[in-house]
């Protein structure tokens, strides 16, 4: 198949334009992609099997590693699944703190996306600024949880530490700062003619099949489908908070960028409400030791809205201290195979990184 005009190349696993350790095999005719094949298997992480071999409490430290850019939705999902199986009612303060952590995590993940998306078209200054601003959120995580990336904070039964003194004021102050900064990002990135010209009309997703194919998150909302777990099946205290689900109609890379940008505003809005409403009280239920904590023989399916879309866990207990089976259903598998392989056909080689970044693909989640 290799002729002077027709070549096959690997985009990744070591490529600045790939979103993690995976690769896309591209059949090119000149600059145009004829066929795209996704390849994974560069991580061999096997989280689901690792979790089956540990007690529930031990397994809790593994799940955050399923997605590096935003570990907290995994921790929340794990805790929610265990609590539902064990019929535990988490204290209200802990639920508020969880939402605080989840929204901060969403903001941090969106800043990281902004860095990747802008880097994919050569706007590196935006990327460096976004990483610097994300670091300010990580500073808050360091103070609250004791770690910057893998927080291991949302624990079955509550959260592990209470808020440090003055923490909410510091979050509030940072949100005011970030709100100002986001206007600057609009100027240099979202409204930038370079980005618009590259992103408008590229990677268009058809809304008619999007739900049937199992797409989630900004992929759905970017083509006009209002879907968000926080509204559709509220968990924690999201039903007590006011926020909107931003949507766009075009279904292209630019529409997905606009949706993400609007979601950052909504996250800041939610965080202000959480700070205002934060109740006093316990942060954790009294938990038995890890060998005595047993899950009943039952199964459950829980889901949260991550920064990249619906993130679900299936969990089954068998009456022992170990989890019988756990399955992770994130956005990456369906976006990296079903969607990306079709979306790249007919696209230009230079648009591969651009399209990939807009889909929110995280390879460890595929190789769970």
């Amino acid at each position, binding site marked *: 198949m290799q002729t002077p005009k027709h070549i096959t190349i690997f985009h990744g696993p070591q490529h600045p334009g790939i979103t993690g350790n995976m690769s896309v095999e591209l059949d090119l005719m000149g600059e145009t992609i004829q066929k795209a094949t996704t390849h994974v298997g560069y991580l061999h992480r096997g989280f689901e099997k690792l979790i089956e071999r540990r007690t529930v409490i031990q397994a809790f430290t593994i799940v955050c590693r399923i997605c590096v850019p935003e570990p907290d939705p995994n921790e929340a999902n794990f805790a929610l699944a265990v609590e539902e199986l064990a019929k535990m009612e988490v204290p209200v303060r802990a639920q508020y703190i969880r939402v605080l952590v989840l929204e901060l995590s969403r903001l941090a993940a969106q800043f990281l996306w902004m860095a990747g998306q802008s880097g994919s078209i050569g706007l590196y200054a935006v990327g460096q600024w976004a990483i610097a601003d994300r670091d300010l959120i990580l500073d808050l995580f360091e103070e609250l949880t004791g770690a910057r990336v893998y927080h*291991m904070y949302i624990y079955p039964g509550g959260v592990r530490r209470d808020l440090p003194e003055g923490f909410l004021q510091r979050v509030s102050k940072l949100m005011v700062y970030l709100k100002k900064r986001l206007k600057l990002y609009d100027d240099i990135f979202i409204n*930038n003619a370079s980005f618009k010209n590259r992103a408008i009309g590229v990677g268009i997703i058809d809304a008619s099949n999007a739900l049937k194919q199992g797409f989630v998150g900004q992929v759905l909302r970017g083509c006009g489908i209002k879907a968000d777990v926080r509204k559709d099946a509220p968990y924690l205290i999201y039903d007590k908070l006011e926020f909107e689900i931003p949507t766009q109609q075009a279904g292209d890379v630019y529409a997905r960028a606009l949706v993400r940008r609007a979601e950052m505003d909504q996250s800041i809005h939610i965080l202000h409400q959480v700070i205002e409403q934060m109740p006093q009280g316990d942060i954790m239920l009294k938990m038995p030791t890890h060998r005595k904590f047993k899950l009943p023989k039952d199964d459950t399916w829980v889901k949260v809205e991550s920064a990249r879309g619906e993130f679900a866990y299936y969990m089954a207990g068998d009456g022992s201290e170990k989890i019988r089976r756990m399955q992770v259903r994130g956005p990456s598998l369906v976006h990296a195979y079903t969607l990306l392989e079709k979306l790249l056909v007919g696209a230009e080689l230079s648009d591969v990184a651009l399209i990939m970044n807009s889909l929110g693909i995280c390879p460890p989640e595929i190789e769970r």
Partner: protein
Amino acid sequence: MKWQIDIEGTLSPLAILGAFFQKPNTIAYPTIKKTTATGYRGFHTNVLADCIGCANCQDVCMNDAIDMIKSDQEYNKKNASQCIPRIDYGRCCWCSLCTDVCPPDSLKLDEEYIGVSKHASDFIYMPKNK
């Protein structure tokens, strides 16, 4: 791809020039060192006067990073096993479950987190007695 003239989109990125008047986000390491937040999960410390050698930390560690070993350091009189924990930092994930289950609260994580050594054997770490 159709390129269009977008005057607003061409001029708006000039806002980046404002960065010339801002302070840098980075710090001049190592002249200025980053301060770690209180409660940061760094290296282990163990107060030997309190440690009772119960091995709860070893039991809860999901990575098998903790071994209970005999040591020539002075023990707590209540330490019947006469063993104290030793951490393998090749395995540890700093989850802090070991400190959560410590009955006398002697095992803790310190804010210190930078460790440099030429020897791989230094990954086997004896918590500082403090």
